């Protein structure tokens, strides 16, 4: 079946450094992508999204890049802070499906 996967299960970065979390998706019909942040014991929190007609979108300290040619999505976090420590999920929406498919998640650990 179709799936969204992440390249690395855990990413450890130094406070103040930039973080890059990667995601691969397999369905070429996916037209909408979202990054979520999940802290322990809580529900996922929306970070940023991007539609397939874009290749880059910026938010506050975060940037999402979409490469449809290789079906790759990344989340860049600038000046990573201890509060950024969490599990990050990418999710894809397949056109017309009306539901999100989530990847397995990457744990981001920020070292002080």
């Amino acid at each position: 079946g179709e799936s969204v996967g992440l390249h690395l299960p855990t990413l450890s970065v130094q406070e103040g450094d930039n973080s890059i979390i990667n995601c691969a998706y397999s369905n070429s019909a996916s037209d909408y992508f979202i990054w979520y942040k999940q802290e322990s014991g809580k529900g996922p929190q929306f970070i940023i999204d991007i539609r397939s007609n874009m290749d880059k979108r910026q938010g506050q300290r975060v940037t999402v890049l979409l490469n449809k040619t290789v079906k790759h999505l990344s989340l860049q976090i600038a000046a990573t802070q201890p509060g950024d420590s969490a599990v990050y999920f990418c999710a894809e929406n397949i056109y017309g499906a009306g539901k999100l498919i989530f990847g397995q998640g990457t744990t981001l650990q920020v070292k002080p």
Partner: protein
Amino acid sequence: SQTIHQWPATLVQPVGSPLSLECTVEGTSNPNLYWYRQAAGRGLQLLFYSVGIGQISSEVPQNLSASRPQDRQFILSSKKLLLSDSGFYLCAWGAPNPNEKLFFGSGTQLSVL
């Protein structure tokens, strides 16, 4: 503003007992509603979604069922819980347009013993 309420936060149930988890949404009409389950250290698995009252789509065969008796109420149930039903259950809502983000509740940690 829209809010989503999910309860209880934690639940410990014996094997074979029934289950009822409730989720309600405020501040929006005709939302799409979803139940996800998350195993420890894993991603989110879609269990059910609903685009309207009484309309339920099941994603995976399982020991659970869902109902939507009102526009903004979504219920996850089981007649007899199994050990494998343990997990973190998340309710979410989204706008009727399918290409929109989902907003998640705070989750219910279910332990079946």
